[in-house]
């Protein structure tokens, strides 16, 4: 008898679709219905850079234990794209399942012997019921969701409730969607043995977690952080940050009496203009930001240097994708670390923040505006496509109403009237951070000239070497001050003492959490440290010092964070072993555990060889 995979609430379903066929909402419906059953899900959009007619995939990991990283492997493939048939079929795990549209039956040679094939004549069913071409396409997706609900034992009421929520007030659409769903479900129940080996059972493992995209969360963070100006230029995968900001602002930022906008959003002509507007607005006392990706960061370099040297706040949300150049525009990477840390020419250093998920994308973006104002410098929120463009389960967003906007050191008209001395680049507090004034503050004092050329403490142009050095040293002091302001790294608790450490950051986090357990199963105990900001907190150096060997997990080719650590900290590079994943897909726990295991094995073998004297 053919082996059939069997699992409850622990499997991966992948949908192979054609871009533009309207599958996205049906697939989301599928994922969300499982979440509504109290079972954690982690879906990911996997799409090449194209618009319509080409392949797109949606992969849903169902994990009762709550693992949210990409697992790798596919247990059930919903193959709706003839173009990618061969590679999709190949991807199915031995004993797995293939669900396909059998309107045009495939010859046996197109299948594999070690998988279970479930063919359903979706097109035929659809064409029998619907005459409109678009309806035929859209409802085909809902019909397969109906069939899957029977095959995987998903609570039909959860799906119907979701459809009802989606089409509230649009009764005609609601009814026809429910009808299509039931048509698929009824057919599957009549024709197939339901459920298959993979099943969902209701649990209470989701708790109060929410399900949202990182880009939308970051945009909401910008609203809560008090941003009033957003200037952006469309680029994948960051565009939905500005679009979501507009949506949120329309809801929350209207003057009640007039309906006027308490925000300004400009789609600029390019990235140079977008960062220019951000800088102009921030210079004038508004919190402002842009969202972009690697190529946008490249274009913004000159302005970023100006903001650093002239000490103007700016928030840049970098949703990283595969580089260099156009690279893989719709794939994820962490490959802008160095280009952001040292953006522009001359000696520069910039603050980077690394959110791990949508919740932190919200939190750190909101905080970024305080950091930018307090430090009077550009702040980079280093998100990536994996966080930004996928709906992810995460803890609810939270906000403390007692927290007020911190505008940093701003000299007011009252302070100037009271005779407070003002020098734009005077380090009055010894922390490297000077006071600034907003233009138009005072009729007699407080005005100064902002420029990218070097200047003295009073903001007067000066090419004198000592003035330049004093300025540059103060900027370093300010960078040092940043360490005490920025979020500290998060320690992964471990009960057993070990000399092996692992450091990671950003979207690697969910896969790493799972990898700790996989490693433990293999008898490898490691300490973990999740880095959340550059400049590095003192705990980072302490962590490296406390271990003999530290793995540094990154999603880029050149171990960019490792380079940053080696450049900026007093540590032995030999202690930092890179674990690198950069094919554009989100890193998996299997990969991390496998790579660390292999590297440790190799080290042990090397040590044994050394001990044996050869």
């Amino acid at each position, binding site marked *: 008898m053919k082996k059939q995979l069997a699992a409850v609430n622990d499997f991966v379903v992948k949908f192979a679709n054609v871009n533009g066929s309207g599958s996205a909402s049906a697939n989301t419906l599928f994922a969300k219905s499982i979440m509504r059953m109290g079972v954690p899900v982690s879906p990911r959009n996997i799409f090449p850079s194209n618009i319509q007619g080409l392949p797109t995939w949606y992969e849903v990991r169902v994990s009762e234990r709550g693992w949210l990283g990409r697992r790798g492997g596919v247990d059930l493939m919903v193959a709706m794209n003839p173009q990618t048939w061969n590679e999709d079929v190949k991807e199915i795990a031995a004993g797995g399942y293939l669900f396909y549209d059998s309107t045009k039956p495939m010859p046996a040679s197109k299948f594999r012997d070690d998988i279970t094939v479930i063919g359903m004549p979706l097109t035929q069913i659809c064409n029998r019921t619907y005459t409109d071409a678009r309806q035929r396409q859209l409802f085909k997706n809902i019909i397969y969701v109906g069939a899957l609900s029977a095959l995987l034992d998903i609570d039909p009421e959860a799906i119907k409730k979701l459809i009802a929520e989606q089409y509230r007030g649009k009764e005609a659409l609601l009814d026809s969607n429910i009808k299509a769903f039931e048509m698929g479900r009824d057919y599957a129940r009549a024709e197939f043995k339901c459920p298959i080996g993979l099943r969902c059972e209701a649990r209470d493992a989701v708790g109060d977690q*929410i399900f949202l995209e990182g880009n939308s969360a970051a945009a909401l963070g910008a609203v809560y952080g008090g941003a009033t100006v957003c200037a952006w230029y469309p680029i994948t995968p960051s565009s939905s940050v500005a679009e979501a900001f507009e949506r949120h602002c329309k809801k929350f930022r209207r003057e009640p009496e007039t309906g006027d906008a308490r925000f300004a959003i400009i789609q600029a002509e390019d990235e140079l203009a977008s960062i220019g507007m951000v800088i102009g607005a921030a210079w004038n006392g508004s919190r402002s930001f842009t969202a972009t990706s690697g190529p946008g960061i490249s274009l913004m370099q000159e302005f970023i240097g100006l903001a650093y040297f002239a000490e103007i706040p700016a928030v840049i949300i970098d949703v990283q994708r595969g580089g260099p150049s156009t690279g893989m525009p719709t794939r994820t990477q962490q490959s802008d670390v160095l280009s952001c840390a040292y953006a522009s020419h001359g000696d520069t250093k910039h603050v980077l923040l690394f959110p791990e998920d949508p919740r932190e994308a919200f939190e750190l973006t909101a905080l970024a505006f305080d950091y930018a104002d307090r430090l009077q410098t550009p702040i980079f929120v280093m998100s990536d496509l994996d966080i930004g463009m996928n709906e992810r389960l995460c803890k609810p967003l939270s906000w403390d109403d007692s927290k007020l*906007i911190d505008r940093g050191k701003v000299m007011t008209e009252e302070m100037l009237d009271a005779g407070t001395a003002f020098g734009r680049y005077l380090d009055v507090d010894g922390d490297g951070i000077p006071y600034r004034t907003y233009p138009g503050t005072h009729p007699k004092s407080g005005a100064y000239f902002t420029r990218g050329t070097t200047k003295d403490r009073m903001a007067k142009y000066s090419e004198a070497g000592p003035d330049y050095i004093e300025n540059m040293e103060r900027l370093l002091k300010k960078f040092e001050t940043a360490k005490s302001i920025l979020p500290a790294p998060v320690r992964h608790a471990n009960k057993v003492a070990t000399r092996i450490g692992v450091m990671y950051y950003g979207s690697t986090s969910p896969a790493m959490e799972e990898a700790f357990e996989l490693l433990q199963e293999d008898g490898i105990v490691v300490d973990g440290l999740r880095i959340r900001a550059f400049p590095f907190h003192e705990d980072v150096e302490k962590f490296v010092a406390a271990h003999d060997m530290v793995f540094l997990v990154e999603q880029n080719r050149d171990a960019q964070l490792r380079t940053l650590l080696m450049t900026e900290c007093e540590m032995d590079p030999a202690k930092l072993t890179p674990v690198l994943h950069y094919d554009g897909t989100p890193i998996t726990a299997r990969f991390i555990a496998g790579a660390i295991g292999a590297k440790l094995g190799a080290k042990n073998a090397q040590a044994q060889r050394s001990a044996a004297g050869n």
Partner: protein
Amino acid sequence: MTYIAKPKLNHPQAAINTLGFTRRHYEGTISTLCAGCGHDSISGAIIQAFFELSIEPHRVAKLSGIGCSSKTPTYFLGGSHGFNSVHGRMPSVLTGANLANRDLIYLGVSGDGDSASIGFGQFAHSIRRGVNMLYVVENNGVYGLTKGQFSATADQGSKSKKGAINSDSPIDLVSVAMQLGATFVARSFSGDKTQLVPLLKAAIQHKGAAFIDVLSPCVAFNNHGGSTKSYDYLREHNEAVNRLDFIPKREEITTDYAPGTVEDIEQHDGSVVRLHKVAEDYDPYDRIAAMNYLQAHAARGELVTGLLYLDREPEDLHSHLGTVKAPLNTLGDKELCPGAKALDAINASLR
């Protein structure tokens, strides 16, 4: 970038404006541009315009890019915040600043290299967006700071100081501004303060994108026989479509001029530009006719100066965006942060 301190002398009988300020309040540091530079005349005209309009200097934000012209904001309105940004990218910085605080007066100062070459895109887009500003290009057709290369406004066939002939077609910023929807477009000559000062005053009061192209000969690199931007050439080829006065809103409109030779143009804020029409057939309200007029004269080698186009009911970027009347930079926590309760509702909608 001044090494010489400006003397703080103030003549006891110096004229004062309605704020009680003398011209000295509108000056900056001593210019370090070459003696005779047209840009210094423009700085002088700017000083005079703001002085005569009795605008508090600190209510003005002056922004520039990089180049000789972009150095000039240091030389006027010392009590204003200035921003010397990067080459060609002043317009975006000004746009952002304007978004943050709509209450200030924005003066963008640029050059022909800064606006017609490296910054052509930003120039165009700031005009297209209707940013409420006065955008002045100090146009000499040459790169001065890098010693004499042609800029994109240099006329085809004109000669550089070193004898090179420019083979590229010139960009006419006035035509471009008009085509892109600027609501106030003028051209003047740095050597003609009588024309330039009222133009500046009207443009400062204009509530929309106001653009003035000021031809400003470069004495070091572009004031020779082969240049079409030299003092001599400009004086010979200048055709003024109008002479004008600017009457601020608060002043009563006088009736000194004979009917039929004077045209009062009321701007959005109620202030009036008074045109002395020398070209009887010139209609400054008709954008298309104005563009044709410019092209026809350009074909004859004539430079048309004066107020070339005016939209009497301009809109600006803030009206396009529907922003609140209060400057965005004055909004506080209460207006900006939706608070924990709203977030709870968002959380609930995401389950």
